[in-house]
């Protein structure tokens, strides 16, 4: 992990409610692995105070991309940044996805819900580079929540979309679309998912029912991103017991079977 106080924004793409920024930061790019994240300073001023944790969406030789939704004040300020401006970033942080040793010819299901699609593009590219066959399940509330569909399609990735309101693709939740697919086609070697908590929980259930290993990238408000504040914990099984584990340090990706769902 390192600090790049002046990662230059070299490209921006904006949709209704979503933004993609490409940041020139060779040292961060070189170290980045799928599922890792950046802590991005939103402003030099004390408000908003904290950095924002954002998944690494893609990696080029000298740059990384972030993709995020305008969710609150911090991301709204970030969304207004323009090419030519710089961002203060820490990264790459966290442990990321664990890509199995043997990927060649294997099928993988990648589930992204809304802004949770962010880390899966980098993962899909990596899996494909290693001879794997990623199949992307991309869900949103409406068609407007699927801005990256064209990007995946342009890379000739296999993408299936779902919308809660039925405005595009499968009508219903992305997890329901996955279930239907699991009935119809060969079982994947692994499921990877990132999205809102109810989707993560359902994905874990589906994976457990069918005994498919799954990895979930979890989200939390974070104070520091480097393990110092202990603010971003989730309940994770450790042997027989379960404890509050910092997702910035031991995650943000966990095996679905390790995650304890409260309530």
């Amino acid at each position, binding site marked *: *992990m*390192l*600090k790049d106080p002046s990662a230059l924004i070299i490209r921006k793409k904006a949709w209704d409610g979503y933004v993609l920024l490409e940041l020139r930061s060779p040292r961060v790019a070189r170290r980045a692995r799928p599922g890792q994240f950046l802590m991005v*300073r939103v402003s030099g001023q*004390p*408000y*908003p*105070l*904290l*950095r924002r944790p954002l998944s690494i969406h893609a990696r080029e030789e000298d740059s990384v991309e972030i993709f995020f939704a305008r969710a609150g004040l911090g991301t709204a300020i970030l969304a207004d940044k323009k090419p030519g401006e710089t961002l*203060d970033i*820490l990264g790459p942080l966290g442990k990321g996805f664990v890509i199995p040793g043997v990927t060649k010819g294997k099928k993988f299901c990648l589930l992204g819900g809304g802004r949770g699609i962010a880390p899966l593009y980098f993962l899909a590219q990596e899996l494909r580079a290693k001879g794997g066959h990623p199949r992307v399940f991309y869900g949103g509330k409406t068609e407007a929540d699927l801005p990256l569909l064209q990007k995946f399609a342009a890379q000739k990735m296999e993408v299936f979309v779902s919308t809660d309101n039925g405005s595009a693709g499968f009508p219903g939740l992305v997890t329901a679309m996955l279930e239907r697919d699991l009935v119809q086609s060969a079982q994947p070697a692994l499921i990877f998912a990132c999205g809102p908590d109810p989707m993560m929980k359902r994905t874990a259930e589906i994976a457990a029912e069918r005994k498919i290993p799954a990895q979930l990238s979890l989200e*939390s*408000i*974070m*104070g*520091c991103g*480097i*393990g*110092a*504040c*202990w*603010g*971003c*914990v*989730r309940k994770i099984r450790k042997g027989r017991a379960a*404890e*509050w584990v910092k997702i910035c340090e031991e995650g943000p990706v966990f095996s679905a079977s390790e995650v304890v769902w*409260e309530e």
Partner: protein
Amino acid sequence: MKRIGATDLAVDLGFLKLRNPVLAASGTFGYGLEFKPFVDLDKLGGIIVKGLYFNPRPGNPPPRLAESPSGLINSIGLQGIGVRAFCEKVLPQLQGLQTPVIVNVCGETDEEYAAVIDFLNKNRRIAAYELNISCPNVKEEGRCPALSPEHTFSLVKLAKQSSRRPLIVKLSPNVTDIVSVARAAEEAGADAISLINTLLAMAVDIETRRPRLANTFGGLSGPAVKPIALRMAYQVASRIRIPVIGMGGIMTGQDALEFLIVGARAVEVGTANFVDPGASLRIVKEIQDYCRDKSISRVEDIIGTLMTE
């Protein structure tokens, strides 16, 4: 060798001489190791590691953090590894460092504070203790010792009897009369006072009408609290003889200098470490730049120089 004309940044707490007046505050700097990629720990005045109870502590359920304008509200619940793991796993990794390591000591009961100190006494790597008297006390229905001068006095006295190291007592701002608590600690034998801990606070999500912290209440830190912290540091430094270490929302060298000017002999940098992991060393440099610009040869010459006439 110091360059001729360079500012002498060292400050003397009496019981401990610091290379410079900037310490990393407990609870914001992990166990120190987390910051190795960003900070040369030996260039700091010292590090105060995360609060330790005797046994490991699970901490509070999430959400544990809520951001507020220029501030951060936390209810971590002092999750931690306990003294044994600290001595066995963490301290050996800090062994090669020159920087003073100060341990923040916690307890659910007065006896637990004493037990933690007793356990840590064996370890020579520890330069001093910072007594965290803001821990909910199970024998006082969760009231922390810091809320009462009487409890502060008896606890500090007990801790001082147990301790083979200098004892810094960290005060809570959640009191009406901070000076009376500081005096109680001084009379009980404290070697220094540090202040302030966080301010009790809360935040509400208006969509769900739920508290934004699972614990409902948390402690507010960050730039939002600095004016209050500064006022309290000034009040206490003016009324006691033992050294005061000031903290609360210090983000810049300028903030740190304000604390030194009102009489703090050193400062702790806390929440700033989250925003910028290199903040502590940047603040050292900013203090140095100020001294150079003003031709101040010793940072000690700034301490307690507030002009009130």
